[in-house]
C-alpha cells in the first residue's frame, strides 16, 4: 500500500480552530465534520451540563482552562459569561457567590431576597471534577481535529458518504 499523501490546508485549520468539525466541512467532508462536532461538543456540553457554568473558570481553574480553551472561542465566551454575569466582586476579589448571596447589577454581592436563588451554585466533589474533565477532554480531541484539518489525507473519503453522494467530499479535493 503506498504511503498516504497529505497536503497543508491552513484555511481548514483556521476553521477548525474556530469550531471543531468546521475545518472538515470546509475541506468538503461535511459528514465527517458533523460527527466530529457531535463528539467534541457532546463532551463539552456534557461537562457544562454536569458541572454547571463554574466548570469553565479561568481564574479558579487556570490549568484546566488551558485545556478547555483548545476547543476554541466557545470557551472564552462561556468564561466571559461566568466572570461577568454570575460571579460577584467582593472587594476586588472575583468569586462565586455564596449560597446566601445574590448579585446586584454592578456585580457586587448582596443579600438574597426571600425565595431568590444565588446567581449559580458551585459544584463540589465528583460532579465538579467531571465538569472540569469533560470540556478538557473535548479540548484535547480538538487538537487532534485541528491537526487532521491542517494536514488532511488527500485519499480520505467523507464518512458514510457511500450511502449518499459519492461524487462530493474529499474525492473532489483529491482530484484537484
Amino acid at each position, binding site marked *: 500500500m503506498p504511503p*498516504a499523501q497529505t497536503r497543508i490546508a491552513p484555511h481548514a485549520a483556521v476553521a477548525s480552530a474556530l469550531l471543531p468539525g468546521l475545518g472538515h466541512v470546509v475541506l468538503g467532508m461535511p459528514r*465527517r465534520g458533523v*460527527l*466530529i462536532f*457531535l*463528539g*467534541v461538543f*457532546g*463532551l463539552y*456540553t*456534557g461537562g*457544562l*451540563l*454536569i*458541572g*454547571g*457554568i*463554574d466548570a469553565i473558570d479561568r481564574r479558579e481553574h487556570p490549568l484546566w482552562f488551558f485545556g478547555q480553551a483548545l476547543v476554541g472561542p466557545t470557551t472564552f465566551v462561556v468564561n466571559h459569561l461566568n466572570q461577568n454575569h*454570575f460571579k460577584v466582586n467582593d472587594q476586588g476579589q472575583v468569586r462565586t457567590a*455564596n*449560597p*446566601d448571596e445574590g448579585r446586584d447589577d454592578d456585580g457586587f454581592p448582596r443579600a438574597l431576597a426571600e425565595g431568590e*436563588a444565588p446567581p*449559580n*451554585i*458551585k*459544584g*463540589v*466533589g*465528583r*460532579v*465538579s471534577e*467531571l*465538569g472540569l474533565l*469533560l470540556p478538557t*477532554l473535548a479540548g484535547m*480531541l480538538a487538537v*487532534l*481535529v485541528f491537526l*487532521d484539518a491542517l494536514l488532511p*489525507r488527500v*485519499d*480520505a*473519503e*467523507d*464518512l*458514510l*458518504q*457511500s450511502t449518499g453522494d459519492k461524487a462530493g467530499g474529499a474525492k473532489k479535493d483529491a482530484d484537484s
Partner: protein
Amino acid sequence: MVDAFLSLANLPYRPFIDPLDIGLPALREWSYVLLIPVAFLVSLTYRAVRSHHTERFWRSVFVMTAQIVLAIVGLTIAAQIFVQIVLPILVP
C-alpha cells in the same frame, strides 16, 4: 452558611448554570456510569478523524468504546487488588 447550603436543595435546577446533582442527586452515586457515554463520544471523535474510509465506521466506534470501558474497568480492578490485597501484605 450551613443553612444556606441546605436551602439549596429546595431551589429549582437551572441546566448549564447549576451542577447537575442539584436536579439529579442520584448522579453522586452513579457518576461512574457516565464512563460509557464519555467513551462513546471520545471514540466517535477519534474514529471520525482517523478512519479515512467508510467501511465499518460505526463498528469501529463501538469496538473502541468497548475497549475504553473494559480498560478502565480493568484498571479499577487492578487498583482495587493493589490497595486491598497487595498493600496490606507489603505494609502490614
